[in-house]
């Protein structure tokens, strides 16, 4: 069942269309990534889902209710965290969380806050003022604030930016665990492609206010259809060069390793030709396309699916 439905959403700022009619939905317990180059409309989309911005047209339905008309009841079950949101500096971490619990009308506050303190490892920071925290610690407090109401839908903007790798890994595991145990749905924007690949069930790619990709990270990466075959050749390098040339493939050589770009489906055939021509090598690796490759291609403005993979 879809907990979030976005239909033909548009947003125009002073005659400039920023979001040009996007539609998508999200199932309960799903982790959805939103990616796109700068200015693609990611933040505007998140802000319309959260009710910060009012859409010019189109609808956002969360838990079957309309945003922003039913904002009060929707936001009791939704929360948001961004690395870039400031916390009230004068308050301590404890006061910040107490204050948030008031906003969300949390019953049995003391018990809930104790739980949050343990989950986000805040014991040592508990009575420190927010202003004295490092960027990473503030991110952690921000995330803990977003969990005060145990949201069913959580929107995260760069959740692990400025966290050290150990804490970032812990937080990622925590989100995955929350989804498994409580079916929490998460929308995530991040510039960390590995994080998106590992966490997200599905990724939306936005560009110029439109959705240009909507699929699993693996399937999106496959649209690149380009693989890099890396060989450290020990014998008959000239024959390999000829083979690359006649096959109209691209290659680069770095530190004695030849990296050949070719379509994934042509890889077995090319390796057969290498063997047939008795080309010897001491090292072989294959770099399959990743979500990052797909994203970079989108960001550069090339159409996905077109490749320079040769015609063996």
């Amino acid at each position, binding site marked *: 069942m879809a907990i979030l439905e976005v239909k033909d959403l548009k947003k125009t*700022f002073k005659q400039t269309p920023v979001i040009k009619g996007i539609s998508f939905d999200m199932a309960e317990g799903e982790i959805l990534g939103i990616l796109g180059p700068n200015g693609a409309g990611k*933040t*505007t989309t998140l*802000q319309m889902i*959260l*009710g*910060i*911005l*009012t859409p*010019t047209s189109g609808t956002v339905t969360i838990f079957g209710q309309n945003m922003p008309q039913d*904002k*009060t*009841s929707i*936001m*009791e079950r939704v929360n*948001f965290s961004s690395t*870039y*949101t*400031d916390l009230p500096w004068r308050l301590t971490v404890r006061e910040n969380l107490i*204050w948030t619990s*008031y*906003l*969300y*009308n949390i019953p049995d506050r003391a018990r809930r806050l104790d739980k949050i303190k343990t989950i986000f490892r805040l014991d040592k920071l508990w009575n420190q003022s927010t202003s004295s925290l490092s960027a990473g610690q503030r991110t952690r407090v921000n995330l803990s604030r977003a969990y005060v109401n145990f949201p069913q839908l959580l929107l995260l903007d760069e959740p692990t930016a400025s966290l050290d790798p150990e804490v970032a890994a812990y937080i990622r595991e925590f989100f995955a665990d929350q989804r498994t145990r409580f079916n929490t749905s998460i929308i995530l924007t991040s510039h960390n492609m590995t994080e998106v690949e590992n966490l997200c069930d599905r990724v939306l790619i936005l560009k110029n206010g439109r959705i240009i990709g909507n699929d699993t990270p693996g399937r999106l990466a496959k649209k690149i259809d380009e693989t890099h075959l890396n060989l450290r050749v020990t014998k008959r390098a000239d024959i390999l060069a000829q083979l690359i040339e006649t096959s109209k493939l691209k290659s680069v050589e770095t530190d004695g390793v030849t990296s050949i770009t070719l379509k994934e489906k042509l890889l077995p055939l090319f390796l057969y030709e290498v063997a047939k021509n008795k080309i010897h090598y001491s090292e072989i690796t294959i770099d399959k396309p990743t979500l990052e490759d797909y994203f970079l291609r989108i960001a550069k403005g090339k159409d996905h699916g077109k490749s320079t993979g040769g015609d063996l």
Partner: protein
Amino acid sequence: MKIQHLKAYVRVWLKLTIQQFQSQVANARGAAALFIFGKLFRLASALFLVYVVVGKAKLIAGYSLNQAIFLLMLFNLTQTISQLFLRGVYLFRQKVVDGTFDFYLLNPLSELFYSLFSSTDPLDIIVSMPYFFLVGWAWVNTGYAITLPVVLLLLVIIILSTLMVTAWHIVIIAVGVRYLEVDNTVMLYRDLERMGSFPVSIYGKFGENLLTYFFPFALMATIPAQLVFGLFNPWFLLLFALFAFIQLRLSLWFWHRSLLSYSSASS
């Protein structure tokens, strides 16, 4: 609105107000003392002005000194009560610029509630005390009877006046959302409001009509005068209530329209 929501609003408002008071006591004792002194000075100068004008002219637009003081103090009392709750409006521009308004929009409570009531100033309670006293004192001196029905009706009028003032403050913050401008709109509003604190017949027909029908601040002074001075017309009260509710509806409509053009601090 559900009862539990109402409770949450009251609890958050109380928490915010206590924080505001603690912050004033801890960090800005000097500023708080200056604020109270300034307000009391303003009260004294208004009283002095009425005394001088009526002392020379004996009557101001047909009102005696005590009647004029009663009207002026009642008007100021309404204004102070409104400001007690609506002080946040004066800080609204900063909140839009630094992203605090985004935070208001993000949580389950109404962004309008936050924008209007997030900086309730407890010092205004202290400032409103002399007005309460002077309203009572001037009323006794006018010689008109203080009866329970009149007091109750007066309370209704004060509530309606507060609604009207709230409506105008909603318009001010709506302009703030749209154009990031609050200070000049506040000044414009306060000048017009102050004009309404005197009997409007002194401004001539145009001024009277402007302050009665377009910016109906004059009604905030005229209706209580009619009530206390024995000229009460229930239809006029009904008209006043209608004006207050229409203004509130229009201001809410304008507020929602202005949110359409909001682009958030991060944009």
